[in-house]
């Protein structure tokens, strides 16, 4: 948190992307979160990913609920559309917006309280429906904004700042997203941009419901010994199943990997996700074994990160509803009111 606006001066060699923008052009207002908050690092990763993908800021809609995490869309992509919705209700507003205008890139930003407590129902349904979006859950295990109460993702037995152990079972949102039908499910850590940035880029390229659970330490209320969402705990227990490289356009071989150690996944938009395997037996396209793997390792106290599951045959809500290719909000009266002859024809077909 700082009172000064970030100076507009930037490094003299700061590169420009294909649109002529620098990374700094994708920033938002100065963050008001606590110093050291993991959420700010996630914002930086989103900025980096969007800059690298040459995303036009006006083609992005950022939607969020309530919480420190849900405040962050103010701190990145300052020239994009934004909607700070009601607590736990981001998924329904995002679904509506996506139905009305399928042409935008939808970024849903939420917290563990927002998604796993008050918004759990909405969370489940937005995944079920396969809304085409990138859903980023900034998971700190507490309600940061309301001063650090345990959230539903806090591990059983993990201690609060005052040392009180959590008695309730945790909700693992990655497992839940898998169960609910999300077609891209990943987990990362705010302190590891090397893993997070390509993951966000991969999620943006995914057609359908893409979910990333990002463990994001809350400096003020959940970064103490006994917490399982602290910088130290995550660094000590991080079990990455794979690392991602995003290859745009024609694949160019940069590194040779021993046979069987890397897999390429081609996305709808033609980009290739190259998965470098860290866990030899991990298959990110096998949903059932992914669910098993996550549960097994969670029981060992490990934080499984990486691209956990991807379905590259995925479809999205518009395909499921068989909507027209033109965004609904671009349809004119002519298409929406085809006239009495068309109505008569429709009625006749129903008789």
């Amino acid at each position, binding site marked *: *948190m*700082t*009172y*000064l606006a*970030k*100076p*507009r*001066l*930037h*490094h*003299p*060699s*700061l590169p420009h992307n294909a649109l002529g923008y620098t990374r*700094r052009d994708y920033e938002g207002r100065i963050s008001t979160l*606590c*110093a*050291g*908050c*993991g959420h*700010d*690092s996630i*914002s*930086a990763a989103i900025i980096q990913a969007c800059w690298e993908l040459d995303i036009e800021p006006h083609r992005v809609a950022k939607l969020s609920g309530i919480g420190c995490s849900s405040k962050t869309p103010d701190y990145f992509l300052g020239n994009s559309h934004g909607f700070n919705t009601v607590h736990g209700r981001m998924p329904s507003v995002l679904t509506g917006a996506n139905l009305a205008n399928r042409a935008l890139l939808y970024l849903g930003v939420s917290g563990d309280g927002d998604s796993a407590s008050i918004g759990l129902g909405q969370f489940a349904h937005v995944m079920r429906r396969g809304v085409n979006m990138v859903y980023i859950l900034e998971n700190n295990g507490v309600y940061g904004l309301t001063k650090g109460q345990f959230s539903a993702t806090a591990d059983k037995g993990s201690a609060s700042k005052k040392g009180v152990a959590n008695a309730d079972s945790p909700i693992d949102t990655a497992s839940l997203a898998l169960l609910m039908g999300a077609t891209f499910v990943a987990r990362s850590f*705010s*302190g590891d*941009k090397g893993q997070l940035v390509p993951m966000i880029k991969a999620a943006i390229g995914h057609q359908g419901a893409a979910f990333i659970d990002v463990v994001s*330490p809350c*400096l003020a209320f959940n*970064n103490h010994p006994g917490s399982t969402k602290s*910088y*130290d705990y995550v*660094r000590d227990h991080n079990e990455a199943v794979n690392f991602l490289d995003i290859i745009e356009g024609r694949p160019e071989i940069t590194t040779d990997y021993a046979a069987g150690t890397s897999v390429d996944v081609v996305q709808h938009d033609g980009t290739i996700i190259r998965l470098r395997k860290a866990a030899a037996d991990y298959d990110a396209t096998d949903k059932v074994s992914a669910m098993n793997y996550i549960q097994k390792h969670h029981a060992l106290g490990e934080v499984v990160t990486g691209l956990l599951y991807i379905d590259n045959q995925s479809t999205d809500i518009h395909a499921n509803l068989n909507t027209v290719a033109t965004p609904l909000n671009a349809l004119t009266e002519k298409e929406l009111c085809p006239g009495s002859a068309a109505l008569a024809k429709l009625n006749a077909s129903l008789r």
Partner: protein
Amino acid sequence: MHTTDIKNPDYFHKVVDCQWACPAHTPVPEYIRMIAAGRYADAYMVNWYSNVFPGILGRTCDRPCEPACRRGRVEEDNLEKPEPVAICRLKRVAADHKGDISARLPKIETVKNGKRIACIGGGPASLTVARDLVPLGYQLTIFDQDPKAGGFMRTQVPRFRLPEEVIDEEVGYILDLDVEFIGGRRIDSLKAILAEGYDAVFIGCGAPRGRDLEIPGRQEAAGQIHIGIDWLSSVSFGHIEKVGKRVIVLGGGNTAMDCCRSARRLGGDDVKVIVRSGFEEMKASPWEKEDAQHEGIPIINCHVPKSFTHENGKLTGMMFEKVHAKYDDNGRRTLVPTGEPDIFFGCDEVLIAVGQENSFPWIERDVGLEFDKWGLPVLNETSLQSTIPQVFFGGDAAFGPKNIIWAVAHGHEAAISIDQFLNGESLDTRPAPHLNLISQKMGIHEWSYDNDISNESRNIVPWAAAEKTLKSIKIEVELGFDAQTALKETQRCLNCDVQTVFKAPLCIECDGCVDICPMDCITFTENGEEAELRTRLTAPALVASQDLYVADGLRTGRVMVKDEDVCLHCGLCAERCPTGAWDMQKFLLDMAHAEPARRLTNSRRNAA
């Protein structure tokens, strides 16, 4: 890379680019902040202790600090015309607005220590020696062939750049400390001076001989051909008040610029500078060239003088050969004739400003003082002691012509050496600079310095109207910043002396500082060799002369690497750090001087 030793005084000193580049190591950002606070007299005194002639230097300094200034680098790719802070002209602001500072000057030392020192030449080098030593009780006698003290500052630098009152004032501060000045006395023999039994002799006689140009016609037309520096001093003394209508100035250095601008004011309507080299390679500072061109003086480059033409012993003009510059593989330049026919320029007078030399006709070669093959005295480069132990050199006399600020820097060093020598101390151990590193933290987002970053471009110094200034050699051209403009200019300074100090054991590697840093200075990464490490930082570290700040001891085994190059010293890293691993600390470095200038700087620093 090894962890950076920030206790080494040079490390943070180098980060203060301007101070590092200043030969006298003036604490620039310190005085700029004082100007911003309206503390002009304080700002003046900071300068006075370091560089002795703030009012003079604020108008004439060669300003090596400005090309070094970080502001020029950080404006690149950000503002239209990247420019350094107008450091030099802010110094003048301190001098112009300071009011009466006499009470702050050292008191006359009435208790003498019985040691007598002679200074030959009354330029800035000798005056600095006197200022540093007289307050210690030494008795100083300065001899100069000219009637008044000041050396070339008085006799060469023209009055339209440096008014006489400014010289009188600042030379006066020194002479009034009870320095004996014997003007109008040329020293003809070092032997005789040594025989007078001085405990030490300081030679600050400058580089007083202007180079001549021995080409056909030189002797025949001698009446209208002058050596630049001789002509300038004659102008300065009022012996010359007029010049012909058409004047050619030969040479591309600052002397040439002063000659042409002076000629323009003494009746020269058609004054040109003609130089052998290309425009870019000219020795004159860019601003001096601009100033001359601004006054309607063309600079004609790549013309080599061939001969003076004359009729009946009267100069009619000059012939030149056209050349272009060619560079060999070692980057060495040769001027190659273009083959075009020689070119004639008509003129009434020629001023030759093609260089300056040392000459010591008054030093007997059998006196025991060694000279090298270039005719310069053999000296210990740091102590400035000659091969006669009690004889020291400084200023232009030491290593050839430089400038005022170098003369001052030499003066300080020589004063320390003389003091050590006369106290039987070794001259090899130089006194360490005075250092202070103090946290600037006042509150969560409160610093005792102004960390907001200005986006302003460099402010332009106002000039007196050209119709007026071209009429008289005595009217000062530059007017100096008014208080408002000065304040705006101070805000461009980045406070490079407020250092980012890192404590690895406190860092939890949250990336907060990395993300907020507007200049991408900070990286947490695996360690490596410097050249390789420089390529894989958040932003590549392009300027190899700018150090990397490396710290190990992090929990993940990585290192923190900060490229100092374009850090804005905005303190956002420290504001964003949850654990206080970054702190902003003011690094104040004052060079050691001969006591008690040292004691005086110490009392000033209590206010730091």
